[in-house]
Structures are given as structure tokens and as C-alpha cells.
């Protein structure tokens, strides 16, 4: 038997973007912006808290941060968050380089899977979207997907939360418009989990909120950030700036500004309740200067998201990411190409909570077919990331000696026991032409659409217990 020294049985494909020195330069530059210029906080409570903690306040609400506050906050934030499904089973691990994929939130338009029309969302559409997420094995969490126009606009976020809890067991990343609706969302999730204590243990929901770039924090965003810290439910307070518009034009500059905003949020969050769960994230896009649109699928967006993943890991925090998005208007070849680079980059950089799957047209429109395609691409890239196992068992010296020149390996026991470790696609076609013709000679686009419709028409999510449905209904009625 061959002897090996320092054998590494698995070495998966490697990707690294920033050097340690570059990461430190970005970190120190953000600290300098926080010290010299600071962040404007439109929130009186936060200013009092920060002043008490040792920040410097000037011009009424401009908060300047000494490095020690930021580093204290970084030290107390936990390195991992485990989100459970609706039944309390751990399902989404936010730690290290583990990747989990989910939809986006609050799109205005849907590409109708039956008429192919570009139109507004209805309540039925978002329900179909949540059931789609529930059915797809490589989509791990749900966001609200769309804003339905056939409900009372004041209850948009309440209805979204109610329907997500009712139509899928997968963990939820939610958005709300103010403190009261955020509290109602928490109440709904708590009713389903079996009380606030159970929800805190299960971490079934995570809030998405945003600073107001450049270098500002709004009243409602900080309200929600403080509420999440107090309840010890996870939050991602993620800037979404466009470089060249509300952030400096360079990627390093976009990172420095976003980092200053994230770190100022983390200080508020950790000084409110040290050890409360916080996800490190930012979506740093650039503005396409010919169309003035936000690019969701540019190669540079893949770079900034990889930088955010590396910075987050450097800080020891769970990370936020993006994939399955396109700037195309329909589910066409452009959409497929852009979906692939985004999934490949996301898997290589190892963000933990990768969202916006299904986004088209700068996040204005959702395509259900795009969600189904991404489900397939995640499986495909998983099987690229797995790398090559090099071990006595896989080097197959015995097998080669046994079969010898001119033989074949098709019917050996080793082939039979190993061949299934190769990936078999479910939607990408490898059939011989005759079979492909026989099965209707479909394009990938047609197969994606067919799968969307099959799931909408046949998938039955695990029903929510009647008393819990009633509890959600009661919270919704009180809100209206």
C-alpha cells in the first residue's frame, strides 16, 4: 500500500479575494471614517445610549465612534446562528463557510408562469412562491418575494409573515416597515413556535433592515435593530448602496463606507444587549451610468459580495450574500448566465445566508422559473465544490491492475458502488437526441416553467395546526 505524507483527502476548489493586509486596510479606513466623520443617527434613544457608551456626539445627532467601542461590539457578537424550521429542527446553519439559499423580498412585479405576463403580485402569487420554496430542496429559507396589491397596504408585512408561516416550514428572513409591524411579526412567529422563549431558542425568523447610505441611520431602522437585540432574535442590518450614487465609485470605497455603517449598527445592537445575534452583510452594487439602474448581476457585484463574506469571517460573524439574480427582463439566456456566475461566486466565497434568488430587472421583478433554475444550479455547483477525493480507496490501483489494457470498467463492483457520487441533473438535459425528441424536445426554459407549474398545482406544504392558524388570524385582525 502506498504511503502518503500530510495527505489531504479532500481539497475543494479554492477562492480567495482579499489579503490579510487588504482586509486590515479596509477595517482601519472604516474606523477612520467612524472617528473623523461619524454616522448621523435619527434616533434619540440611540444617541443617549452611544453617548453613555463613550461615543462623541456633535451637531445634535452626529455620532463619532472611537475604535474601542467598535472592537468591544465585535468581541461580544456571537460567531454562529442556528435557525430552526417551523417544527423546531435546526436547518440553516449560519457559520464558517456554510451556504444557504433563499428568495428575495418585496418585488413589485411577477412574471406570470401561466400567461408569461409582467404584472403586479396578488396574495395568491406570494402563497405560490412560498410553496415553491417549501418544495425545492436547495432553497433553504424564505423571504417575502412580492408585495401583493389585493390586500390592505397597511397590512402588507403582516400578511406576508402570516402566509410564510402558513405555507412553508422553512426559516424566514422578514422585512417590516415600522416598529409595530416588526413586533407583530415577532408575535406571529412566537405564536407558531410556542411562545417568545421557544422562538428565541429556535431562531425561526431573522429581520432584514438597512442603514440609509451614505452614513445615516433612520429612526425606524434603529427602532427595529434595538427591538431585535432585546428579543435576541437575529438581524442583518445591511447597507445596499450604489457605488457612484450613494457610495464612493470604487469597490474599496464602497466597502469602507458600508463597513462604517455596519459597524455603527453593531455597536448600537451589542451595547443594547451584548451577545445578541447579528449577521454581517452588505449589498454593494454599482450604478450602471448609461441606464441609471442598479446592477444585480455584474462581475463587480460578485467581487463586493465575496469581500463582504471574507470581512465577515475575519470578524468571526455569520455573513449575508446574494445569488440567483439577474438584470434580464425575462427568464432567458442572459438570466441563466447571470444566475450561474452568482451561484458559483456565492459558493466559492461561502456566504452563509444567500438571498434574492429569483430577482430580475434590478430587483423589481421575480421569476419563479429563476428560483427553480437556481435550485438546480446550487446542486450543480455543490458538486463542483466537493473537489476530488484522493485516497487509497479512490486511486483504484487494484482496479486498474485487475481490468488491464483493453478492458472496461462499466460492470465492475467499484463502478457500481461509486457511480452515483457523480451528479445527476434533474432539469439540465443529457439524453440522447432520440430520447430528447421523444420527450417533447423541450428547452430548459420550458422545463423550468413546467416544474414551476407542477409544484404550484401539486405541492402540499405541511399544514399549520388549526389553533396556530387561529392565533395568526387574531394578530392580523387586531392590526387592521
Amino acid at each position, binding site marked *: 500500500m502506498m504511503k502518503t505524507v500530510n495527505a489531504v483527502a479532500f481539497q475543494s476548489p479554492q477562492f480567495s479575494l482579499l489579503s490579510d493586509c487588504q482586509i486590515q486596510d479596509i477595517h482601519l479606513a472604516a474606523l477612520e471614517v467612524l472617528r473623523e466623520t461619524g454616522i448621523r443617527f435619527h434616533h434619540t434613544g440611540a444617541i443617549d445610549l452611544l453617548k453613555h457608551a463613550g461615543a462623541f456626539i456633535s451637531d445634535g445627532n452626529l455620532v463619532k465612534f472611537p475604535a474601542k467601542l467598535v472592537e468591544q461590539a465585535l468581541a461580544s457578537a456571537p460567531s454562529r446562528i442556528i435557525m430552526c424550521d417551523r417544527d423546531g429542527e435546526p436547518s440553516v446553519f449560519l457559520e464558517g463557510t456554510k451556504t444557504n439559499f433563499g428568495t428575495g423580498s418585496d418585488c413589485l412585479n411577477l412574471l406570470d408562469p401561466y400567461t408569461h405576463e409582467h404584472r403586479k403580485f396578488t396574495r395568491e402569487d406570494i402563497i405560490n412562491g412560498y410553496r415553491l420554496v417549501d418544495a425545492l430542496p436547495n432553497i433553504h429559507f424564505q423571504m417575502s418575494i412580492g408585495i401583493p396589491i389585493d390586500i390592505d397596504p397597511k397590512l402588507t408585512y403582516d400578511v406576508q409573515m402570516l402566509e410564510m408561516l402558513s405555507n412553508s416550514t422553512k426559516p424566514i428572513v422578514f422585512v417590516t416597515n415600522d416598529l409595530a409591524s416588526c413586533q407583530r411579526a415577532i408575535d406571529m412567529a412566537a405564536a407558531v413556535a410556542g411562545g417568545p422563549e421557544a422562538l428565541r431558542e429556535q431562531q425561526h425568523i431573522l429581520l432584514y433592515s438597512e442603514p440609509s447610505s451614505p452614513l445615516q441611520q433612520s429612526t425606524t431602522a434603529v427602532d427595529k435593530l434595538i427591538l431585535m437585540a432585546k428579543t435576541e432574535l437575529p438581524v442583518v442590518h445591511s447597507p445596499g448602496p450604489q457605488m457612484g450614487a450613494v457610495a464612493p465609485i470604487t469597490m474599496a470605497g464602497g466597502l469602507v463606507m458600508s463597513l462604517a455603517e455596519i459597524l455603527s449598527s453593531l455597536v448600537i445592537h451589542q451595547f443594547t444587549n451584548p451577545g445578541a445575534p447579528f449577521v454581517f452583510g452588505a449589498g454593494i452594487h454599482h450604478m450602471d451610468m448609461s441606464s441609471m439602474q442598479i446592477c444585480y448581476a455584474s462581475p463587480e457585484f460578485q467581487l463586493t459580495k465575496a469581500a463582504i463574506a471574507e470581512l465577515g469571517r475575519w470578524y468571526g460573524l455569520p455573513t449575508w450574500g446574494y445569488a440567483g439574480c439577474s438584470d434580464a427582463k425575462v427568464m432567458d439566456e442572459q438570466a441563466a448566465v447571470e444566475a450561474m456566475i452568482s451561484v458559483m461566486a456565492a459558493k466559492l466565497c461561502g456566504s452563509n445566508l444567500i438571498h434574492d434568488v429569483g430577482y430580475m430587472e434590478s430587483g423589481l421583478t421575480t421569476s419563479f422559473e429563476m428560483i427553480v433554475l437556481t435550485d438546480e444550479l446550487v446542486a450543480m455547483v455543490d458538486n463542483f465544490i466537493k473537489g476530488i477525493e484522493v485516497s487509497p480507496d479512490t486511486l483504484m490501483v487494484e482496479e486498474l491492475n485487475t481490468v488491464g489494457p483493453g478492458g472496461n470498467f462499466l460492470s465492475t463492483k467499484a463502478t457500481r458502488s461509486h457511480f452515483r457520487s457523480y451528479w445527476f441533473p434533474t432539469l439540465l438535459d443529457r439524453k*440522447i*437526441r432520440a430520447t430528447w425528441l421523444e420527450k417533447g424536445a423541450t428547452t430548459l426554459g420550458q422545463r423550468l416553467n413546467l416544474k414551476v407549474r407542477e409544484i404550484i398545482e401539486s405541492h402540499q406544504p405541511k399544514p399549520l395546526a388549526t389553533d396556530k392558524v387561529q392565533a395568526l388570524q387574531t394578530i392580523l385582525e387586531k392590526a387592521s
Partner: protein
Amino acid sequence: MEQLLTGMQKCVIDGEIDQIQGYVNQALSDGMEPSVILNNGLIAAMNEVGQRFESGDFFVPEMLIAAQTMQTGLAILKPLLIKADIKTAGTIVLGTVKGDLHDIGKNLVAMMLEGAGFEIRDLGTDVNSEKFIEAVRNGDADILGMSALLTTTMPTMKETIDALVEAGLRNKVKIMIGGAPVTEKYAQSIGADGYAPDASRAVSLAKSLLN
């Protein structure tokens, strides 16, 4: 008896090559007719394997190991079947055409056809038209099967068919062809009787040609 046959079928389908002779010997010592063991045990199992392959539940390595298991069982039955003068499903002469050394596809087809109860005369690779003609002239072949992987060797299929016509032997056999570059249209254009895109369908084709 039924239970024994079901166990034998499962043994073939699962490719338990070490156990198949045990089942066949057990059936023989229980007094089961060799033809019943062949048709209701081994061939029935291979039909199921073929169906599973065509529906996408089975993959090539599983199909092959099942075929090998079937043949291991058949080895015990063969002398008994000959003694009892039991006819096979038909005799098929196979070969990869001249200039082509690729044989994995042909071997796959041979195994599947054998699994379905056909008698196979495998002429190997790099087979010229003279050798094919000789095999048809001197043997009792029902079907002649030709395989090619290379586009450069495909024309030999036509040459062989033309030579068979010239020798007055064309009506003596059915001709089926296959291989990666071969198509239904090509098969028709050179006067073959049939084309199958994969090993499993080669079995259905052979059966239909002899019906």
C-alpha cells in the same frame, strides 16, 4: 415455486452475482424445468431491468451487473437447454466494423441481448465485410449487428450491406446497426432494417425484427 422464482428475479435485478447459481441449482433440484427457470426467472428479471433503465430508475452499471448475474445463472442451464433442444430467442452475429477498435458499446448490446435470451456470436472489433459475410453464410444467424464509433468507419456498414446483397445473402438476415454517430436516417439510407440508440432499445429492436 413462485417464491423461488421471485427470489431469483430479485437476485438478478439487484446484481447479486455470488448468489444466482444457488437459486438456479435450488430450482433444478426442486424439479423445475430449465426452460421455466430461464423464461420465468432469468429473462423475466432482465425484462424488468430493461424497463427500469428506460424509465430512468436504473443506470448502465446496474444494468450490466444484472446482465452478468443473469449469464452466470444461464451458464448452469445452457447444457440442459441444448440437451432438451430448447430454442433461444434467436442468434445474433455482432461486430465493430473495420478500422474501429471501440467495443464497449457493442459489448453492452451483447450483454443485454444475451440477457434477453438471444444467442450471441461476437466477432470482436475491426471486422471487415468478408468476415461478416462468412459468418452469415456459414452460420444460422437471424440478425447481423454492426457497431461503429467513428464517423470515418461508418461507411464500412454500407459496404458490408452492399457486399451481402452481391453475395445473395441479404434476405437471409435482418440487419441492425448502432453507435454514437449512427442515426435512424443513416440506417434507412444504407438499407439496414433497424437502428437503436441504446443497449436497452437494441433488445426491443431485435425482438421486433424477428416477429
